[in-house]
């Protein structure tokens, strides 16, 4: 399997390195191969729609045959999440408490962390759709810190959820026992099997566990580091790699973007190329255990579906582990997709 064929790909890296361009390019290429592909932007400062030259919302929009795209807006997600919770428990709240419960939910909506929590909830729901609605999902993520948090949340949250669920279950059992004995041996009601509160918490926890299992499975998911061939970017990438390793998140590939190609003429290009080739050599040595790819510097801005498709074709080529990165010249690579 090619590194970039994993069903879940997370494109990440420092701000401005071209994550969006490469993620969109990859998604276009995947879709043109007939795979139902969803492109999801989790960056609160979205640029996916701008890159595609279209308008995206929080529901998947069809871009091309087999390609859908969505931009998750944390504010919208928090509103939607609160509305869902309100609806779910509407039948279980005694009328005298309704006003106070609603007040509390509105406070929760405004609390710090609410939007991140709602974003994460939606994120795990999308991951659940791989294999059913979609074949692949390409995530265009926010700069690294934010994304690492998103990817490492499930392991932390599910343990807390488990504690809460177990305690709540125990209280439910004791409550039924208490209700049975308080009226002197006349059973009040039989075992309650349908507990909507517990069901909601269990569903959420199960989904977090599924997300965690998917994210850490190299057959199913991979992080794609986008890096510019510059020393500072390399240092940050190495730190990011160490963090992902610590959380068992597999890395599908490292892509060096905006590499000045051998064909570029002029003194400026020659100097840049000399500098870049040193960094690329360092990437080859230090990140040798990953698939490494190069995408060349284009003449102008890469915008619109056709330009992005060219990038996608480039980043989907068959560079494999162990190949020398600098020897992978974008121009001469076998093209993996349909090029316009």
């Amino acid at each position, binding site marked *: 399997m090619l590194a970039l064929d994993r069903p879940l790909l997370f494109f990440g890296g420092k701000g401005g390195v071209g994550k969006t361009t490469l993620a969109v390019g990859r998604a276009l290429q995947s879709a043109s191969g007939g795979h139902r592909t969803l492109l999801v932007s989790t960056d609160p400062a979205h640029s996916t729609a701008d890159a595609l030259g279209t308008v995206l919302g929080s529901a998947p929009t069809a871009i091309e045959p087999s390609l859908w795209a969505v931009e998750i807006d944390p504010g919208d997600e928090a509103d939607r999440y609160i509305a869902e919770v309100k609806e779910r428990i509407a039948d279980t709240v005694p009328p005298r408490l309704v006003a106070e419960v609603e007040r509390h939910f509105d406070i*929760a909506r405004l609390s710090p962390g609410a939007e991140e929590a709602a974003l994460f909830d939606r994120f795990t729901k999308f991951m659940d759709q791989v294999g059913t609605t979609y074949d692949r999902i390409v995530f265009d993520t926010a700069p690294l810190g934010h994304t690492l948090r998103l990817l490492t949340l499930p392991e932390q949250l599910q343990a*807390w*959820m488990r504690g809460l669920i177990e305690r709540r279950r125990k209280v439910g059992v*004791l409550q039924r026992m208490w209700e049975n004995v308080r009226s*002197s041996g006349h059973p009040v009601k039989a075992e309650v099997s349908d507990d909507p509160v517990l069901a909601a918490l269990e569903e959420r926890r199960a989904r977090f566990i599924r997300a965690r299992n998917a994210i850490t499975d190299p057959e199913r998911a991979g992080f794609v580091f986008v890096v510019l061939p510059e020393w500072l970017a390399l240092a940050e990438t190495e730190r990011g790699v160490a963090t992902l390793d610590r959380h068992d998140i597999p890395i599908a590939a490292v892509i060096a973007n905006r590499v000045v190609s051998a064909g570029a003429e002029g003194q400026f290009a020659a100097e840049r190329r000399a500098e870049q080739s040193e960094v690329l050599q360092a990437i080859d040595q230090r990140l040798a255990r990953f698939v490494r790819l190069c995408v060349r510097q284009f003449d102008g801005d890469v915008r619109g579906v056709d330009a992005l498709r060219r990038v996608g074709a480039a980043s989907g080529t068959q560079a494999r582990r162990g190949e020398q990165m600098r020897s992978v010249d974008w121009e001469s690579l076998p093209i993996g997709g349909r090029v316009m």
Partner: protein
Amino acid sequence: MRAVYEELYFAPYRSQIRREYLRERDLLFLSGCSDLLGVPNPVAFYSLELYPEMLEHWHDWHRRMGMPRAPDGGFRCC
């Protein structure tokens, strides 16, 4: 007569169950609403469904503790 014997049998059992039930509810309240005590609860947003029960529990609790009205800083149940 039968009722008296039944009561003799059930009374200690009943108070034991009640104590255990209230103790567990207090613990659930502590873990579900730890932010009220200033201890962050990372899953507060993912356990909002528990809130109506917590509110009722809070009400029971403050009355059990001899406070006819809810103390400040918690939920405004009464």
